[in-house]
């Protein structure tokens, strides 16, 4: 059964490049452009992994991450934070919010793909 990945970013072009990065591995790709949208989709679609931006409109990615990790439905769902905030204390805040990986923008699609595969316990073809 194909894995579902939720991509969250308010920049359409970033969402597009994420989609292209992950498109050939048979994932079901979902998208959200803000925090409340992401949480709603996580609840209804139960994704296997979330790629999450931090600076989002109305609700920060850190808050979204905390909410995901506090909900029994999504507590086990791996979260990769993908953000332009590159300070060490930012990464710290990300891990404290429950992120499984913290990647900074600009990111390498290959690195992201590797992390996704690792977190989903898949073999890279």
């Amino acid at each position, binding site marked *: 059964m194909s894995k579902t990945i939720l991509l969250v970013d308010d920049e359409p072009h970033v969402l597009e490049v994420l989609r292209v990065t992950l498109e050939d591995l048979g994932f079901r790709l979902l998208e959200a452009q803000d925090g409340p949208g992401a949480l709603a989709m996580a609840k209804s679609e139960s994704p296997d992994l979330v790629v999450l931006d931090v600076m989002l409109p109305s609700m920060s990615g850190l808050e979204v991450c905390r909410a995901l990790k506090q909900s029994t439905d999504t507590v086990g769902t791996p979260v990769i934070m993908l953000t332009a905030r590159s300070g060490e204390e930012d990464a710290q805040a990300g891990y404290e919010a429950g992120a499984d990986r913290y990647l900074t923008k*600009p990111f390498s699609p290959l690195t992201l793909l590797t992390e996704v595969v690792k977190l989903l316990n898949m073999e890279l073809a």
Partner: protein
Amino acid sequence: MNSALEVHDVLQTMLDMVLEIFQADAGSVMLERDGFLTINVSRGLDPEIVEKTRQKLGTGIAGWVAATGEALHLDGKVEDPRFDMVVERGDSIASSLSVPISIEGSVAGVLMIRRVGERRFDPGDLAFLVSVGDLAAVALQKARLFQAERRQRRLLELGNQKLTATFSSMADGVVVLDQSHQVLSCNVVARRFMKPICSDSYEQLGATLAQMVERGQLEFNSGERVLKIVPTPLVVEGEESGSVLLLRDETASRELDRMKSEFLSMISHELKTPITTISAFLELLLHREFPRERLTHFLGICADESRRLQSLIDQLLNLTRLEAGRFVLEEQDLDFGKLVKDCIPAFAETNPDHEFLVQEPFPSPILRVDPTLISQAVTNLLSNAVKYSPGGGKVALSLKELPEAVVLSVKDEGVGIEAEKLALVFEKFFRADNSLTRATGGTGLGLANVKHIALAHGGSVWAESTPGSGSTFFLELPKQVGGKP
């Protein structure tokens, strides 16, 4: 007693007593200053003579007495060759006594009394007057010391007053502590700064500050402001006897630091976003094959993002140049009303949730402005209105023509700004929303740019706001635009 100690009064009282005791008709006390004797007090002398007498030491009778320190008894006409200059007098002197007034071995003045008519002084009178002269010297010395002391005290008081005034009108707080941390003095500013922590207790104030200095905690938050302590030892006569603590209000500079670092983080985010898209697509294109039409599409996105990067950098550079005042306005006479209206369609297209209203009458004043800069200012005002009303709503533009100026206002129905932040909105780095969320997505440059563009045209900007129901931003431009001279 105090007033009697004034030199003049002391001598006058003494002279009057001497005249009475010695049954003399006239007398004077001359005092020496800079090698001359002048009459300090007198009785029975012609005021004109009193005024004009200025006897060099060594000349005349008084001069001789002062120079030699010897007492002198003279009867009848004076023809003594010792006195090489005798003041001519209209009156006749029957008998006179002159004695020195000596303080610590040197002559400070001369006491002189005389009788008119036939009555002459006895030889014994001279010896008696010499003793009186010695007493006068003691009184004079005391009076002088007293006077000097009083002058000193007055100077000290004056100095103190100046110091107190300086102390209380300083911008910094000053607290002086002794070694047991008791407050020796404390200015108004320091009391105000420390009030949230120590209310009005001096004891607590001294203890609190002393403890902070001991711990090396030289910066603290009083609840109302960020304060910095600058301690200096209080040295009295070479001995350390406490400390002087300067309390500096660092609130504004901390706020500026905070805004700067926020701006840096904001601007780095804004710069990284387009680079993220471009670099990720380039990596994908390097490692994977895509059909022609997808390739074109991706490259188109990269081109868009490059332009975005370019415009962001332009805005940054613009602001830097405007701030530094290194800017040549390329001015033209043009219809300001039309220029404003021309900026609207682009916004209406990309922001369907917002309704852009032009309130009639919208005049068409001809102004001499730099069209590129003014368009940028108007665009930034519109973009600000849109950003701070994320839920949509009306954005109303109105233009008022005043005798000397025109005022453009842009009113939104957005989140509004709290009064205390309103003054800061035109500062670079300022963003009303400083959370991680990007509801507003601003760079913190837009309104700062508007301000500098207005200033460059001799105009101004300001804002009004009601939190929760929206803000109005005003741009005023003078009609006789001189711009910068």
